[in-house]
């Protein structure tokens, strides 16, 4: 790296400088660990406390207990009565969103990228607009429209909303990635008499697998982590997802924080497992094209 500087310094000073830099880097790393873990630590500490001990003003609970997790698992508190059903709802929303996003996104980008559709750029631009505009801007009209469609308290309303906001990203990634698949494959399939549906199913989709995994993970996590639309659309205990059930604890001041934090941890586990399992694909998807300066 610094050839010039090395030559100017005596060896022992150079070595000392290196040690100092190394120590500073370690110290910075330590700060980053504390910074990243503090809220997570806080969550775990509250979840492990007895209800009465939360206010005891200690940094670690005196009698750590897994009781709150037991209460969550057995639906032993009235905000948590339908917890496992709601957990299932979250999975239904996540998986349906993932499936619909992949289906709609691949079909659209296949048509724009691989078939010569007149005015296909309009579709790409519409997607780009939707990608850039934040979802919360549409929350109010979306709520009214779901009432008009008669879909409130139905999981489909949330699935529709999140699919709408995940699809533009899907279309970008697919059309970027699709450029790496040679057009000649399509053409030779055409000559052999394949119709567009067959090309889509047997050539396009298999070759798009890495992008499908990246976008699928993205859509699944987006749906699981979303709160605003879940809260607006779903209000009965049987239709709620975990996010809505969790935030219900804020409704009363007397809420047992330890149960709430235990719920928050259980709610955070599936996305974190998925995240670390598919992190390489995710990171690839998120930064795809991002380095093209």
């Amino acid at each position: 790296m610094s050839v010039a500087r090395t030559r100017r310094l005596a060896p022992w000073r150079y070595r000392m400088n290196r040690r100092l830099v190394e120590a500073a880097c370690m110290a910075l790393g330590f700060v980053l660990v504390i910074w990243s873990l503090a809220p997570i630590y806080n969550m775990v500490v509250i979840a492990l406390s007895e209800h009465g001990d939360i206010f005891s003003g200690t940094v670690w609970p005196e009698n750590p207990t897994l009781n709150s997790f037991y209460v969550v698992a057995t639906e032993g508190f009235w905000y948590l009565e339908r917890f496992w059903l709601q957990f299932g709802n979250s999975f239904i929303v996540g998986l349906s969103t993932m499936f619909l996003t992949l289906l709609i996104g691949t079909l659209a980008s296949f048509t724009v990228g691989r078939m010569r559709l007149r005015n296909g750029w309009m579709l790409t631009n519409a997607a780009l607009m939707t990608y850039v505009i934040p979802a919360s801007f549409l929350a109010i009209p979306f709520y009214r429209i779901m009432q008009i469609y008669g879909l409130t308290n139905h999981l489909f309303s949330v699935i529709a909303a999140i699919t709408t906001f995940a699809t533009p990203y899907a279309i970008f990634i697919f059309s970027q990635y699709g450029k790496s698949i040679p057009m000649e494959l399509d053409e030779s399939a055409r000559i052999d008499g394949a119709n567009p549906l067959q090309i889509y199913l047997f050539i396009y989709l298999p070759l798009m697998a890495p992008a499908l995994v990246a976008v699928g993970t993205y859509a699944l996590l987006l749906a699981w982590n979303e709160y605003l639309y879940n809260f607006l659309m779903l209000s009965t205990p049987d239709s709620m997802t975990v996010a809505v059930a969790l935030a219900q604890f804020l409704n009363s001041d007397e809420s047992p924080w330890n149960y709430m934090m235990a719920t928050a941890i259980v709610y955070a586990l599936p996305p974190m497992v998925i995240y670390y399992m598919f992190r390489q694909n995710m990171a690839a998807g998120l930064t795809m094209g991002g380095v093209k300066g």
Partner: protein
Amino acid sequence: MSSVQQVLPLESPIHAGGARRPRGYFHLQGSDTAWAIAFVIPYAAVFAAFIAYPVLFGLWLGSRPAIYPVLFSDPHYIDTVVNTLLFIGIGVNVKMFLAFLISGYFMRRDWWRRTLLVVFLLPWALPALSAFLSMHYMLVSQWGLLDTLWSTVTGTDGPLFLVSRSTAMASNIVAYIWKWLPFWTLIFLSARMAIPREIYEAAAIDGASALQQTVHVTFPLMANVYLVSTLLSTVWTLGDFPTVYFVTSGAPARSTNVLATYSFHQTFTYARPELGAAAMISALPLVIPVVILLIRRLHRSGVQL
């Protein structure tokens, strides 16, 4: 970390293939047109039903001119505008600059830095709801984690974060940076990895110090990614709802709301949806230029996130 390196092979076909795609589309004729239309219909339907209709509906909700004097004379709205500008101005820029610096820190690949990166990405992997609820309880009372630490160390009572507007707003901004710093660090890390090493070697031979290399090599080469990321983050942050809703929930006395939470409360707490829609529409003069700039940049350079 290998996760990011794998971006590059994935990337290379797009780069190596050159900017222009050969005109190798098969020509649409007869039944193919029908296929193409059938393939586009799902997205067109989603767009019409869940984007176009809500947008028009929202514009219609806020279309009565008489609502705007009411909105602009609401003192909470003025507070909200100031908060939103602070939230974006400080939050986005500090976050981006830190992400730029920290991405440089993670460029060296010692074993402990790799481990550190896994820990550092945790805030991004954690659902926003869980993280912000936890932060709310760190701040909300004298028995929260921060004040407990404070009184253990200093022996005095800690500050009450959610009682004054300035500390509450600062808490929102810090929480926001905490959540989104890893994501943008990863973006910048992959941008840094795309810079050829030879440029640094040449600069080092010419006697450039590490600082000079950052200023004269890294930054100019990353300027475009940095700009696009900042613009994109600005628009997204303008619509950021969960941070403020959970960390301070507008406390104290509705003085720390941002645009998204303000219009949420106008609509669903005070049952005045036309005010909520008008508040969102009042942001459009800021949003539209940024969006146009962003879309033109994305089109031209092909940078995307």
